[in-house]
């Protein structure tokens, strides 16, 4: 594996943002720019997934969905167990766990850019899995928090009404964008879709690079909060992606039988933690948890780790496994 594999725009722009923050540059991004870019990226992935879903094998697709549900429901439980073992209180553990069951679209797209730069083929199903994996993690987080609250007697109708709890998980903004765009990608005729692909497809990697530049800065800002999080949580932020990647590799290889590229993408789904969809959901669902913990872990530790170290490392491991 040559170094040049890592010298791709996605990774370098992320690094640039990270460095800019490190040298205390006065570089500022309009706060709303990242929000606009992530909306664009989610629609772009959704369309891509839908177009591929249109002529995908239903059997395989269902297996991929099932695998996504297993990872989405399973990983948070693993994370929760580890966090409790580390003596973290149950509510913070619930909120953090939810982030690790979900995924980071930015990391996933970096992995795609990484594969494309090396002309490595990959299956399309992981894109579908990405859209599926937001909701289960949120639901598990909600349920874990509910259980943790038991007997504290400060139950609250609104927060804990099961119906609304599920609604919030499925009407999450990111989920709506991913699934909605996916449906549009499925139902619209190719020639009609062609009118919007110059915008959503041709520009995609360029927009991603700009998004990652800003995320690099955001990740850099979080380093100042490491102290607050403490050694145990910071190390969890590095260890959990390794566990998630291992689970992803097992699922992608043994169960779904994907090739090198597809397995890497599933590994990244398992390894990455959400910093866009899940944090606002946890704000409402587990208000008692401290957002500084879960934002610092998912955005400040796990995200840079996956982008700069994890992806090539998982790839290296997969190569050896398949060889």
């Amino acid at each position, binding site marked *: 594996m040559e170094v040049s594999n890592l010298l791709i725009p996605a990774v370098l722009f992320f690094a640039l943002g990270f460095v800019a923050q490190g040298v205390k540059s006065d570089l500022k*991004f309009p*706060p709303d720019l*990242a*929000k606009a870019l992530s909306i664009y990226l989610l629609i772009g992935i959704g369309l891509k997934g839908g177009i591929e879903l249109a002529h995908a094998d239903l059997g395989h697709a269902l297996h991929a969905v099932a695998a996504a549900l297993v990872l989405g429901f399973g990983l948070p439980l693993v994370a929760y167990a580890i966090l409790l073992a580390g003596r973290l209180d149950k*509510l913070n553990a619930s909120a953090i766990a939810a982030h690790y069951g979900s995924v980071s679209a930015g990391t996933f797209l970096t992995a795609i850019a990484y594969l494309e730069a090396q002309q490595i083929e990959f299956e399309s199903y992981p894109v579908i899995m990405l859209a599926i994996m937001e909701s289960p993690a949120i639901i598990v987080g909600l349920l874990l928090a509910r259980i943790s609250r038991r007997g504290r007697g*400060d139950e*609250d109708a609104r*927060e804990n009404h099961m119906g609304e709890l599920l609604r919030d998980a499925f009407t999450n*903004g990111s989920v709506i964008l991913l699934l909605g765009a996916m449906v549009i990608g499925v139902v619209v005729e190719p020639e009609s879709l062609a009118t919007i692909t110059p915008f959503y497809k041709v520009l995609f990697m360029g927009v991603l690079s700009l998004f990652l530049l*800003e995320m690099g800065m*955001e990740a850099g*800002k*979080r380093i*100042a*909060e490491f102290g*607050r999080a403490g050694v145990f949580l910071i190390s969890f932020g590095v260890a959990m992606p390794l566990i998630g990647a291992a689970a992803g590799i097992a699922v992608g290889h043994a169960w779904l039988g994907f090739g090198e590229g597809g397995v890497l993408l599933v590994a990244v789904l398992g390894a990455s933690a959400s*910093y*866009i969809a*899940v*944090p*606002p959901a*946890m*704000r*409402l669902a*587990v*208000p*008692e*948890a*401290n*957002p*500084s913990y*879960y*934002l*610092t872990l998912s*955005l400040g530790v796990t995200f840079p780790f996956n982008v700069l170290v994890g992806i090539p490392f998982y790839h290296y491991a997969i190569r050896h496994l398949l060889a």
Partner: protein
Amino acid sequence: MIPTHRMKLINIVANAALEERLSDIAEAHAASGYTVLDARGAGSAGLQTGVLEGGSNILFMLIVPEAKLDEVLADIEKLMKRGHHLAAFITDTQVLRREKFNA
């Protein structure tokens, strides 16, 4: 001289995800309206850069007649009891046109 009328301005700085909850409170107490501004900052919940939704604040402003102050604060207290991270502070203010703020 233009007549002005004493009222209470309730300010709440909280995560953007709470906007709907707060406007529901304003409605529940039949406030004449409310004002929301996007904000960033830092506090016990950590740094809020305003870049990601999970780290974006709003400043929610609600003007109410003094008679209504306590019932509204009670609802805000409920949010805080539930664990929500927010800063709430009340200021005396003089409004033009009392009737606009239904008092």
